[in-house]
């Protein structure tokens, strides 16, 4: 009898999950801090959370598709699908999440040297080092290539001065990846370098900014004569824009997943609403149906793009579509959750927990990582070829 290798993998994985996923980690993880973000400052919310991370990290399951030598499990695309299906089947929490996994990791895998990969990736996979993103500046938001933070060439290092803003979780992070202008005379896209910087060193300071959702994951980050050694550049000097853009496509895919995440084992919005509402009124139900139709279709599109990438047809600029559609949908979904919650949803930590905070947070989805307007401009110029 021949056994389908993917089915064999499924069986093994199922056994492993049954044995290793602590019961407490099988609730999908909705509460804040339910999923570990890693890094030196992380305080585990339970022993089970710590144990789950360690067990997954040992198998490479925190970053299932990364190569084994960099801390991953080296899963193929088919196996990855199965991995998500089986995790979903027991409603397992993700063991670890971070910008290192979603953003820096893919960029390093693509542009980093072998030494850099060996040095930086395994600690991300194990949740030991937490990264933040130093892209935006007060004068460089949508016009990101306008960054002014400057790096002076001092032979074996750069001396960095300037200010970053909206650096999410910078106060919790150990390292920052930053866009720094290393050639002020070059055209704006051609004078930027992509640098990695230890935040514990002298000359790097962060201050939190409070958000409308009541939390302060945002920071301002200041560089004052910060020293960044030359080996901490990713890619070529002054060609950091390529790395920045590559990373952005991953960031956008990650953010868009907020809406598309429903498609896998996730539950339908309408079903979630029915949990707390005996009878949905007709308008709410109709809106929930529309939301469901869009969520499932966007989820399938994410799958299709992954299948395309595997078949050697990368999505390229079309991924701006996923970011746009996914985030707009996620906002709608949370609008509906608020309607469904009625007055219970209006209290901070009321009967519905953090529903209002989550709703407020989603408003940023169509701003962070490039606004919806910027996504539409990318599609209209680069995909449709409309004149600039």
């Amino acid at each position, binding site marked *: 009898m021949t056994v389908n290798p*993917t089915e064999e993998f499924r069986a093994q994985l199922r056994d492993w999950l049954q044995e290793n996923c602590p019961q407490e980690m099988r609730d999908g993880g909705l509460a804040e801090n339910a999923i570990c973000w890693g890094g030196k400052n992380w305080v585990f919310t339970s022993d089970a959370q710590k144990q789950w991370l360690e067990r997954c990290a040992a198998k490479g399951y925190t970053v299932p598709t990364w190569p084994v030598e960099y801390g991953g499990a080296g899963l193929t695309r*088919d196996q990855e*699908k199965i991995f998500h299906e089986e995790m979903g089947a027991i409603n397992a929490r993700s063991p670890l999440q971070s910008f290192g996994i979603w953003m820096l990791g893919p960029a390093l895998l693509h542009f980093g040297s072998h030494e850099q990969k060996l040095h930086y990736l395994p600690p991300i996979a194990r949740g030991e080092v937490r990264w933040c993103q130093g892209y935006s500046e007060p004068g460089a938001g949508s016009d990101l290539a306008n960054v002014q933070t400057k790096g002076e060439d001092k032979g074996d290092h750069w001396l960095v001065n300037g200010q970053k803003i909206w650096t999410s979780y910078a106060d919790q992070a150990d390292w920052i990846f930053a866009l720094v202008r290393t050639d002020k005379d070059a055209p704006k896209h051609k004078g930027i370098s992509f640098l990695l910087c230890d935040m514990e060193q002298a000359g790097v300071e962060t201050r939190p900014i409070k958000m409308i959702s009541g939390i302060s994951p945002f920071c301002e980050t200041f560089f004052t004569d910060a020293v960044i050694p030359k080996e901490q550049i990713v890619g070529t000097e002054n060609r950091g824009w390529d790395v920045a853009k590559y990373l952005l496509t991953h960031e956008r895919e990650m953010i868009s997943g907020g809406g598309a995440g429903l498609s896998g084992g996730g*539950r*339908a919005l*309408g*079903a979630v*609403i*029915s949990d707390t509402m005996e009878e*949905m009124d007709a308008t709410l*139900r*109709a809106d*929930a*149906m*529309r939301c*469901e*139709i*869009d969520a*499932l*279709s*966007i989820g*399938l*599109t994410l*799958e*299709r793009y992954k*299948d*395309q990438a595997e*078949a050697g*047809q990368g999505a390229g600029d*079309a991924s701006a*579509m996923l970011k*746009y*559609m996914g985030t707009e949908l996620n906002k709608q979904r949370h609008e509906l959750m608020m309607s469904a919650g009625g007055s219970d949803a209006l209290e901070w930590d009321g009967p519905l927990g953090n529903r209002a905070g989550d709703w407020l947070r989603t408003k940023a989805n169509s701003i962070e990582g490039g606004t919806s*307007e910027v*996504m*539409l*401009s990318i*599609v*209209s*110029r680069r*995909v*449709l*070829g*409309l*004149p*600039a």
Partner: protein
Amino acid sequence: MNKLVLTEEETMLADMARGFLDGAAPVSKFREMRDAGQTFDRALWKEMADMGWAGVLVPEDAGGSDMGFAAANVIAQEMGKTLAVSPFLSSAVIAATALRQVSDARASDALAKIASGEATYALAVDEGIKFDPEGTAMEAKADGNGFRLNGKKQFVVDGALADRLLVLARTESGLTLFDIPADRAGIQRDASNMIDARDAARITFDDVEATGDDVLGSVDRAMDVLKPALQAGQAALAAEMSGLSAGAFAMTVDYLKERKQFGVEIGRFQALQHRAAHLWCEIEVTASAILNAGRMLDNDPENAELAVSLAKARATDTAKLSVIEGVQMHGGIGMTDAFDMGFYMKRARVGAEWLGDYSYHAEKIAAARGF
């Protein structure tokens, strides 16, 4: 695993179909037919049959090419782009799928006739203004060894000119599907004057005789054969509508690049760019739902209902947006009969109603997703 990319064969099929349709059935051909009041071109259908399209779902031993549902969707999608007129959906997709649920000599013979293009079919299901097969009232009363059919059907797509009809009627304890020649005594067909200029009919059945032989599948168990057929039809119609969306959209983008106002191409205006980009996003997302529906019908038909309804609902909505924006962005010219956009708008409206509208399929999705 259901890979959501076209296979090499499907890509080739799409390229071939596009090449053929651009030559043999461009929108200008549709306009000629419309102007001549012609709703069916038998010679064109014969050519399509010769390419294996009529037999796309007919088993090889009955003379078909048996390429599968995803392939049928590929063909339907290309037909949608140029608004090609053919009985492809009614005959090659719906009737063939129904017939292949039954394995007897009569069904196999009927399938062979579909594949060769010799026989065309229409599905007579709707009785009211909305698609509702379960609510069928038309009666098939047992009479001796056979039945007598009495009742009325409307919106029978391809029904005025089809050679045969699949008729859904109520029997003693359920619904039964009949496969009968369209010229049987007691059948009166009145062609409907449809906005999309295609064949559709209102049909009256006045004491029409049917024998046990005319029953497709088992008495009282129509859904066994009809359900897969409807799903195949819904998926292919969704594919046609996604092709239609893409066809209308291509015209719109071309116009944005060429039409000048205020001294520049109108495509420079961000207000239009963003709407065009949004429309493209909708079309792209819908394409995924279509591909998925074809894959599910081929690989896991028992569980395809959600995928099919998703495809039809999304395609209906996207086509609507595509034609509304298409007309609006063309300005006044978009409203003229001399311009093709109106054809797309009318076909989109008809496709939206046929085989279940947005709400019908949204309800199915809600049920499948547990609310």
